[in-house]
C-alpha cells in the first residue's frame, strides 16, 4: 500500500444555475493575458450541448485518454511513444483555435473617438488573432441555455451515443449545467503524453501542473487530455492548464472558482488513495466497473492501518486529520452520491459530480404532482429514462444504476427533510428505501443544503516551516525583474525570468492593460483592465483649453 493524498473537488450540479461566475473569476485570475484569450480553465456547459471545445467528448475524433488493449494493459488512445514522436512535426489530433472559438474584442474607442456623423458609432468586433473585422459565430458558451439547442444539440456526442428517438424529445424534458475544470486525474493521460516530461503530478497533493521552463511546445498534452483541459498558449508556445489555484490551496484558501461560486456548490478536500492500485483499477475490462474500481482505490482515512501507512508515507498529521474531515470522502465513498465525469476515459478523474435532481422535480411539479413526495420522486426517477441515460453517459460510462441510486438518495433527502420541516417527524422508511439512515440523511443535508464554508472546504495548508517557499506569500518586489527591472526579456514579453505565479509587477500590469491592440492603437482591453489607474486610451485626451 502506497498512500498518497489528492486534493479533489465535488460539484453539486443540483445547485448550479449556470451563472458563469466561476468562469469569469477564473479567467480574471489566470487567463486574462494575450495568448490565452480563448482559454477558460473553468467553463460552464449547458447539457445537452456540444461543450467547449466543440464535441470534445468525441474521442474517436480527438483520441484523448486511455484504451485497454486486448492483453489488458492501458495504451494512450492516440498512440504510444513511437507514434507520438513520429507525429511530433504535425499533431494530427490537435484541435485548432477555431475548435474552441476565435477570440475577439470590440473596437471600443470608436464609441469615444468617432467623428460627429449621421449615424451612432458602433464598436465592431475585431479578431484578436488577426486584428481584422470578424463575424462572431461561436464562443465558449455560445449554446448557453437554449441558445444553441435546436441548431447544435443533436451534435452532442453523448446524445448521439444514446438511442435515436431521444434527441428530438430532449429539449422539453431536461437541461442542466456542467461546470468543468481540469480533473487532476490519478492516471493523467496528458502527463503520459508529454514528450518533454514537463507535466507532472505533484506528490503532496496530486495537482497536475505544467513546468513552464521545461515545456517545449510539442502539444501532445492538448490532444492527450480527453477533457481538453490542457491549452496551448499561442503567444508563449507553451501548454497551460488549471492549477487548482495551488498558490491559494497552499495557504488554506479554496480555489477562485470555489470561492466565488454563488451557488456554493463546490466542495474541496483531500482523498487518500493507494497509488499502487491505480493502474490496475484503470484497466478493468468492464467500463461499468470503472466507477467501483476507482472508489476502491480510495482509502478509508479512519482505518488505523491507513493512518499508520499515511504517517509512514510522510503525510503530515494535520493532512490526515483533514482527510478524515474531507467532504469529498463523504460524498464519494460514504454517501456515494458523487460520480466521476467520463470514467470510461480511464484517467481516474478527481473532480466528481452530484447529478442534478432538480429537473426531475421540475417535471413532477409542472405536471401538478407533489415534487417532494418520496414515492412520487422515486417513481419519476425510474420513469424518466432519458435524463437517466444521458447522465449515465456522462458519469458512469452508460450504466444507469449508480445514477439512479444517487438521484434516489437526493430525493430521499428532500422528502425526509420536508417531513421534519413540516413537523411530520422523521420517516425512517424513506432512509431505508435508499439504504441510508435518517441520521446520515440529515448529515448529508447539512453538507449539501446548509453547506457551511468550513465544511465545504477542508483544506490543510502547506506547513508554516515551508512558508518562505510558497508563492502566495512572496513579496511582489523581491524577485528579478521586479519594479525597475524592466520586466520582459530580450525575446519579447514571453521570455526571460519567469514572474512568480501569484505576483504581477508594475510593468507587466501596465503592459497587460494596454496590450492586445491589433485593431487600433491606444485602445484599452476592458476585459483585461483591473480597475486600477487610468491607462492611456481609456479616456479621450483632454483638449488644450482645459
Amino acid at each position, binding site marked *: 500500500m502506497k498512500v498518497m493524498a489528492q486534493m479533489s473537488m465535488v460539484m453539486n450540479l443540483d445547485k448550479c444555475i449556470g451563472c458563469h461566475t466561476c468562469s469569469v473569476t477564473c479567467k480574471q485570475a489566470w487567463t486574462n493575458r494575450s495568448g490565452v484569450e480563448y482559454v477558460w480553465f473553468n467553463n460552464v456547459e449547458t447539457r445537452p450541448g456540444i461543450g467547449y471545445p466543440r464535441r470534445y467528448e468525441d474521442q474517436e475524433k480527438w483520441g484523448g485518454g486511455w484504451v485497454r488493449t486486448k492483453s489488458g494493459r492501458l495504451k494512450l488512445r492516440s498512440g504510444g*511513444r513511437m507514434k507520438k514522436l513520429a507525429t511530433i*512535426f504535425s499533431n494530427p489530433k*490537435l*484541435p485548432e483555435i477555431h475548435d474552441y472559438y476565435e477570440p475577439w474584442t470590440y473596437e471600443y474607442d470608436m464609441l469615444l473617438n468617432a467623428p460627429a456623423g449621421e449615424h451612432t458609432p458602433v464598436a465592431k468586433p475585431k479578431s484578436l488573432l*488577426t486584428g481584422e473585422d470578424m463575424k462572431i459565430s461561436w464562443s465558449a458558451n455560445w449554446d448557453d441555455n437554449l441558445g444553441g439547442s435546436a441548431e447544435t444539440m443533436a451534435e452532442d456526442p453523448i446524445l448521439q451515443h444514446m438511442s435515436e428517438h431521444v434527441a428530438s424529445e430532449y429539449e422539453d424534458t431536461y437541461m442542466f449545467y456542467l461546470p468543468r475544470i481540469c480533473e487532476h486525474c490519478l492516471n493523467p493521460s496528458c*502527463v503520459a503524453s508529454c514528450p*518533454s516530461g514537463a507535466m507532472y503530478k505533484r506528490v503532496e497533493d496530486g495537482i497536475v501542473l505544467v513546468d513552464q521552463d521545461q515545456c517545449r511546445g510539442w502539444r501532445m498534452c492538448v490532444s492527450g487530455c480527453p477533457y481538453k483541459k490542457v491549452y496551448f498558449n*499561442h503567444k508563449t*508556445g507553451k501548454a497551460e492548464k488549471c492549477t487548482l489555484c495551488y498558490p491559494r490551496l497552499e495557504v488554506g484558501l479554496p480555489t477562485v472558482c470555489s470561492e466565488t461560486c454563488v451557488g456554493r456548490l463546490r466542495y474541496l478536500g483531500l482523498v487518500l488513495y493507494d497509488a499502487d492500485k491505480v493502474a490496475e483499477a484503470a484497466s478493468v475490462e468492464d467500463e461499468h466497473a470503472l466507477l467501483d474500481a476507482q472508489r476502491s482505490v480510495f482509502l478509508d482515512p479512519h482505518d488505523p492501518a491507513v493512518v499508520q501507512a499515511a504517517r509512514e508515507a510522510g503525510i503530515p498529521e494535520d493532512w490526515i486529520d483533514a482527510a478524515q474531515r474531507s467532504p469529498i470522502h463523504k460524498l464519494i465513498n460514504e454517501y456515494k452520491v458523487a460520480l466521476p465525469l467520463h470514467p470510461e476515459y480511464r484517467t481516474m478523474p478527481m473532480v466528481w459530480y452530484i447529478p442534478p435532481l432538480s429537473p426531475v422535480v421540475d417535471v413532477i411539479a409542472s405536471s401538478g404532482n407533489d415534487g417532494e413526495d418520496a414515492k412520487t420522486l422515486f417513481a419519476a426517477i425510474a420513469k424518466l429514462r432519458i435524463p437517466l441515460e444521458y447522465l449515465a453517459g456522462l458519469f458512469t460510462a452508460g450504466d444507469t444504476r449508480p445514477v439512479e441510486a444517487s438521484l434516489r438518495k437526493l430525493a430521499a433527502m428532500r422528502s425526509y427533510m420536508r417531513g421534519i420541516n413540516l413537523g411530520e417527524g422523521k420517516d425512517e422508511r424513506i432512509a431505508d428505501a435508499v439504504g441510508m439512515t435518517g441520521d446520515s440523511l440529515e448529515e448529508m443535508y447539512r453538507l449539501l443544503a446548509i453547506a457551511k464554508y468550513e465544511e465545504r472546504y477542508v483544506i490543510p495548508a502547506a506547513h508554516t516551516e515551508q512558508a518562505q517557499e510558497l508563492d502566495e506569500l512572496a513579496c511582489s518586489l*523581491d524577485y528579478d525583474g521586479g519594479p525597475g527591472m524592466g520586466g520582459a526579456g530580450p525575446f519579447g514579453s514571453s521570455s526571460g525570468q519567469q514572474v512568480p505565479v501569484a505576483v504581477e509587477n508594475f510593468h507587466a500590469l501596465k503592459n497587460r492593460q494596454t496590450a492586445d491592440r491589433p485593431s487600433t492603437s491606444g485602445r484599452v482591453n476592458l476585459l483585461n483592465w483591473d480597475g486600477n489607474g487610468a491607462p492611456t486610451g481609456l479616456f479621450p485626451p483632454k483638449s488644450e483649453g482645459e
Partner: protein
Amino acid sequence: MTTWDILLWVAMPYAAFAVFVVGHIWRYRYDKFGWTTRSSQTYESRLLRWGSPMFHLGILMVIAGHAVGLLIPREWLYAIGIDEHMYHLGATALGTAAAVLTLAGLAILIYRRRTVGPVFLATTRMDKLMYVVLGAVLLFGTIATVMYQLLGPGYEYRGTVGPWLRSLIVFQPRPELMVDVPIMFQIHVIAANVLFALWPFTRLVHVWSAPIGYLFRPYIVYRSRDDARRPGSRPARPGWEGIQTPDPKKLTKL
C-alpha cells in the same frame, strides 16, 4: 593566402562556433521559458500537415548526409568498400531527394507563414531573419549540388571541405584547403556560419529539445512540491533566510 582567407575560413567559423556555444548556455540559463518550438499549429494545420513533416524529415536527412560527407574521412569509407563512384551516386541521389523534400516543405511553410493571418502576426523579426539565413544556406547548398554534382563533372568536396572542417575541430586549421573551393560551396559555408551564430537566439534551439527521453521514462511523472524549490533553484527572498544558531565566536565581551 590572403587575410581574407584567414578571416573567412579560420576566424569566422571559430567566432560562429563560440557564439553558438556561449549563446546556447546563456539562453538556457536565462531564458528557459522562451525555449520552445513556438508551434503555430493551433492557428492552421491543413498546410502544416504537409509542410512541417516534409521540411523536418528532409532537414534531418540533410544533417545526416552532411555528417557522413564531412565528418567521416573518405578513406574510412573506402575501407568498408564504399568507393568514390558509389559514394557519389548515393550522396547525389539521397541528397537531391532530401533537398527537394526540405525545400518543398520550406516553401509550403513560408507560403503558409505569409498568407495565414494569425501565423504571420505571430512571426517575430528574429523568425524572419532566421528564415532568410536558413533559406540562403539551403538554397546555396542546393545550387552547389545541382551545378557541380548533377549538371557538372562532380566536385570532390571530401578532399577539401571535409578535411578543412575536421582541421577546425582538432584546432589545427588548414584554411588553404578552402581557397580553391567553388564559389557556391564557399557561399554555402559562409551562410551556414551565420546560421550557427544566429542559432541560439532563434526558435532553432528547439532542435536540442528533441524528446528522445520520452521513449525511456515512465508514463506518469511525479514531482515533489519541494523539488521545484530546492535551495538555489530560485533566488532567496530577503527576510526569509533560514534560522541559525548564532556563532559564539562572534560574541564580544564589552
